[in-house]
């Protein structure tokens, strides 16, 4: 039993040594910010209910801060996309592409909305995504 305890203690000491370098090892380096963020698929309507809709698209991995936001500029007039919705997503530095999904809230039922999309880093700086003006209609 004493031997077992001694082994446990030794292993504990080894664990402590491991821990000394552990924290830094947990954080994966953010993906390098790419020169140009291009949409590969979408944007399109994923789902729409009475007062909410989810817009989704896929782009190359923009890189930069892991904490990221998808952004939808929208409005019921295609010439005036004055409202903005943004949703949090977390970039995966190991992935070559990123799926953005944005929850748009507070919509009116049976109304057509026009929108463009972008994404941005946690500090608010835009990824400079260019998208066409699409539309959807709530139920």
């Amino acid at each position, binding site marked *: *039993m*004493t031997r077992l*305890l001694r082994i*446990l*203690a030794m*292993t*504990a*000491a*080894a*664990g*402590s040594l*491991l*821990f000394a370098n*552990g*924290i830094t*090892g*947990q*954080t*994966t*380096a953010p*993906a390098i910010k790419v020169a140009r963020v291009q949409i590969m698929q979408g944007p399109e309507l*994923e*789902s729409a*209910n*009475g007062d909410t809709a*989810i817009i*989704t698209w896929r782009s190359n991995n923009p890189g930069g*801060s*892991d*904490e990221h936001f*998808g952004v939808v500029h929208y409005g019921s007039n295609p010439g005036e996309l004055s409202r903005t919705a943004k*949703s*949090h*997503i*977390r*970039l*995966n*530095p*190991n*992935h*070559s*592409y990123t799926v*953005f*999904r*944005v*929850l748009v*809230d*507070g919509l009116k039922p049976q109304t057509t909305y026009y929108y463009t999309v972008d994404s941005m880093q*946690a*500090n*608010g700086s835009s990824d400079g995504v260019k998208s066409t003006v699409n539309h959807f209609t709530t139920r």
Partner: protein
Amino acid sequence: MNHRMLTIMISVVALCVVVLCMSLAPRKVSAQNVVQDNAPVYNPYPPGILPSDLNSELERVLREVDFIEGRALARWHSLPPLTVTNQPPIFKDSGTEAVETLGELMNYDKNISPNKNQACASCHMPYVAFSGPIPSVNLTMIAYPGTSHFRAGKRSAQRYPYAPFFPVLQFNEEQASFFGGNFWDSRATGYLLRNPDAHQAQGPPVDTQEMGNPDTACITFKLSQASYRPLFEDLYGKGSFDINFPADTEKICATPGGASVFGTDTTPVKLSPEDRIRSNNVYDHWGQALDAYEQSVQVSSFSSKFDAFLAGKAQLSPDEMAGYNLFRGKGNCNSCHLDGRSTAPTPPPPEGTAPNSQDTGAAASTAPLFTCFGSSNLGLPLNPRDAFFYQTKPDSFGFTANPLGFGYRDLGLGTFLRSGFGSWASPNSTWTQFAPANDGKMQTSSARNVAMVPEKCASTEAPGPYFQKEFFHNGYIKSLKQLVHFYNTRDVFPFDVTSGNCPAGKTEKVDCWPRPEVRNNLDMTIGKLDLTDHEEDQIVAFMQTLTDGFTRPYANRDTFTGVCKTGGSAKTQGNESLIKTPHLPPCASAVCGVPPLPTTPIP
């Protein structure tokens, strides 16, 4: 002999007489009296909220706690004498095990609670990786009863393993996010001890709905009476307990916190300023010793099959490997539950470039923690079984845990940043401005040991034999299958209803997810992952490789004396205990009306 020593000796003799008298006094030994000595049971709950086997299960756990305390005492007695060497002073050779053993002795010491019926371990047993040990509680009331029966907290019991590895809470400007801390809402920041886990350990002993001591000095007082006091003094100094406790300390410390007799007094044990400093030091060491135990290889052991896999000493099965590839590929789980692998794009196409089932990257960490230390709002529905919602009337001590009833909403980190109702005060006013961006966010737990169950139960999953666990902060999810299915389909099967009110023909947690309790700051990394049913199962299989105890036995995992369950399906596990959420009043102003206000109103 000086006057101080004489006073201490007289106090000790007097206490011994009191304790002896108490132990000789006739007592009933019915179940009710074992768990609650004097006060009438507080039961504001509608029928069915408290599980029918609650008393017998609390007693079972208490027996298991005592058993492990016995093991810890034996461990202490087998320690070699502590020898101090060098400057700075080091307890050469055996210091590590000594402080870990002290923490272990504290963790399983039920005498720390006012009714001497609850240890830290009562809600955190090793056979479930130090999460909640009572299947029926996990299934029903979610939060565990405290020393004062049956007050209860508001959230599920978080696992100990790897909690000591979280850094001190910090706001990262580049990520515009908080990282670190302990507790679901990160309120144990570690700002003063520089150790969130030690800070965390200072919470439950004085939490009104947990151990419920009315004053941190009560823990010092009880430690001064503990059989293992000599070990504490060996490590932290012989004078640690040279404190003149007032004559009414015992009485005060047997009364649960929040009792109306205390009014607003948070230090009812009246100590001199010097003694208060000594007591605070003891309480800091209480936190640090518990942290030492939780960080030890007995608890955070890095002994899973996945660890063996990383070391090249074990092969993952085809399903486990497929699950791992999904975990870091289509499932995208490792965007937050970091697996410490290389930054090369290792997953198979389309996420990465590696051939299927082939790991081409070198490990960036040999001991990944499967968390990013951050927080997110996953959009879990309000769980109407949470015992907190029903504690709206005063108990026999005049304490009311939740005067807001169903007007309460759990905003997690957001409420903490506002120093709000049900959390702690924030130690940093510059953080307050970030509260609206953090409403609804809860800490990302390590995925390690999420699947740990007692040896005799095969898994967490029906048909079993299984151990009924609860997942996430409010225990809404009851199996790992459901957990993965939630991530996968939250936004595929959304219904604008509350739990228990899915439309006819729909099955809650299968093809109906009630609306989130808090919609603000919803994490959209998840919600529609396009995983097949089989792929969900493969991710579950992978998560089961993260259970410690594969490369060597996990300490005290053999202590479960309860019963495993059988039958049913993991998809609908626990659905028989669903209850209808009542009509919810708006979020109370004490929660949602505290500036800075939520970005959009929380219904």
